[in-house]
């Protein structure tokens, strides 16, 4: 039975790592720009499909780098060409435009890649299982956990230990004051948006050897990512980490212990967060 709990613990970490990759960018652009970017799930989907195409030509490891880069650039182009124009116009235009982008992206993916779900094999080095405390666990899932952890540490260091990070925290805290002391918030926003898109793309390409790529990804990823953001608090990398772990614990252990309720447990957690801590556990402004 100990093996069972260890397996579920590892499943939790793996799911949390993936959730964190998808949510980090959403959370920070939410907190920083007040922008509810519903197209974030579409960027994740794009990362998966681009990953499949690049991997077919140049292998998994190239795809792992190239796909997030392309998705990041796509994000930057979207921000400059479209989203920036509606950034200050309140939530309704933002939601409508970014949700419209989801439909466009889904149709484009259907035209280019077709309707049959696609998949990507894990690279040779990561196929098979490794033993963790005597329990066999898929090597690829261990890689996902390590990727998520590495990105989390790197982001935390950037936000808390560099000048850019300090500017970012200042801009989240009080954008007007930040501008007044000479921080170029426009460029900062663009950088953050690009990085967030790239992380969503990375999440997509990392996810696709586990879950297969289909157009429903754009929505199935968006909802938990929004929940992570609400529970963890907007605009905080640590909040996204905490939110991802909480959502993963609820989903994995819910599935294991109380499967009949597992579909609603996460919404109960969301409701609880909105009632007792509507700003999130570690919102910008709260110490993070």
């Amino acid at each position, binding site marked *: 039975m100990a093996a069972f709990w260890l397996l579920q613990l590892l499943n939790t970490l*793996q799911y949390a790592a993936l959730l964190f990759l998808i949510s980090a960018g959403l959370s920070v652009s939410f907190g920083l720009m007040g922008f509810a970017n519903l197209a974030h799930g579409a960027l994740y989907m794009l990362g998966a499909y681009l990953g499949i195409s690049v991997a077919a030509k140049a292998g998994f490891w190239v795809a792992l780098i190239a796909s997030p880069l392309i998705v990041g650039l796509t994000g930057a182009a979207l921000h400059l060409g479209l989203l920036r124009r509606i950034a200050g116009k309140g939530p309704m235009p933002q939601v409508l435009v970014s949700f419209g982008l989801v439909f466009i992206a889904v149709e484009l993916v259907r035209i280019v890649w077709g309707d049959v779900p696609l998949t990507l094999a894990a690279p040779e080095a990561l196929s098979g*299982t490794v033993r963790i405390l005597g329990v066999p666990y898929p090597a690829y899932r261990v890689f996902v956990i390590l990727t998520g952890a590495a990105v989390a540490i790197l982001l935390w260091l950037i936000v808390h230990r560099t000048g850019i990070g300090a500017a970012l925290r200042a801009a989240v805290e009080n954008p007007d004051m930040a501008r007044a002391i000479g921080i170029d918030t426009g460029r900062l926003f663009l950088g953050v948006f690009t990085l967030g898109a790239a992380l969503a793309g990375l999440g997509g390409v990392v996810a696709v050897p586990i879950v297969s790529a289909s157009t429903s990804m754009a929505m*199935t990823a968006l909802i938990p990512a929004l929940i992570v953001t609400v529970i963890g608090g907007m605009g905080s990398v640590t909040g996204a980490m905490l939110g991802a772990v909480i959502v993963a614990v609820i989903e994995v252990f819910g599935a294991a212990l109380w499967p009949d309720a597992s579909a609603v447990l996460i919404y109960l957690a969301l409701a609880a967060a909105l009632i007792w801590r509507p700003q999130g556990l570690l919102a910008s402004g709260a110490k993070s």
Partner: protein
Amino acid sequence: MRNAIAAGLIAFAAPAAAETTVGLLLPASGNYAALGQDIEDGFRMAITEAARDDIRILREDTEAKPQAGLTRARKLIMQDQADVLVGVVSSAVLGAVRDVVHQAQVPLIVANAGNSDATGKDCSPYITRVSFSNDQLNRPMGEWMAAQRIGSVFTLAPDYAAGQQMIGAFSEAFTAGGGEVVGGDFTPFGKTEDFGPYLAKAQASGAEALYVFYGGADAISFVKQYDSFGLREKLPLYSVGFLTAPLYLRAQGEAAEGVIGALHYLPSLDTAENDSFVESYALEHDGNLPSEYVVAGYDAGRLLLGALETGAEGRAELAAALPKVAYTGPRGPLEIDPATNNIVQNVYVFETVSRDGEMTHQLLDTVEAVRDAPNGCEMG
């Protein structure tokens, strides 16, 4: 003289042959779009083979949404005056359009949705099914596995009507044969992509084997995840055959090796009818093999052609003639059970094997002429 003119006018006004309008009620977008395309391809293949130009085909997108299906069905029936409807992929959509079809007295040839109720307690003289029922595929598999002396299973399926009916029919037959279902879960439908938590539970359950139903993207993800956890030796995987259907087999690759399933059609069936069917499909589709969806569309077309050959015309005559058509096609002998209007057909138990670097299905057993019990059907 006046009579002659009248006769001439009538002869001129009467069309050469009555045109039959077919409404294809299939998803063109959403989760099941690929299935809808396969069914349409199969249906058009049958009509083309017969070289008939008096059949007008209209197509409406049901997506996978009951409400959309209902609206489109109404449009085809009322506005387009369709003589016959063909299609419905999702069991939920079939549930939604059932009453409309029954009340409007329009024949519907069901070319996929396995909803057991549609040829059970909700059966109708206007609904004829040429695909399969959820019971029809799972019951023989439960009996077969019990006969193989598999003592206990853990079951998994998505939490919606089809998943529950499939696992229910399997469990009943498997238990009746002396097996034991030691546990099982229904996973949130459309939300579960990572089956890791459920696979860990199945592993801890102590069952001898795993029995599942998944389709679409889930089928690919599930088989790959099952393989990645190294469960092949510990917990052999059995399923209703959609899991490793031809449509997904290429994406699953080696991970699907050794999975045992049951389906009403396999492209590798070795019969004259199937050989020529596979050949002519492959010719049109880059050498791809036809899926069971293509066959369902094709058989729907053959059924309609068979009914038209008897001279049936219009909704009422077609509805009466359709269930009387029987023929031997790609999937083997096919007839419609007059008690339920559900198809009577062979169910093939197969193993997914790797041959010459390609994944294919190897036939293990044929359960002949599987017929559903009426399950509460009273044909009015």
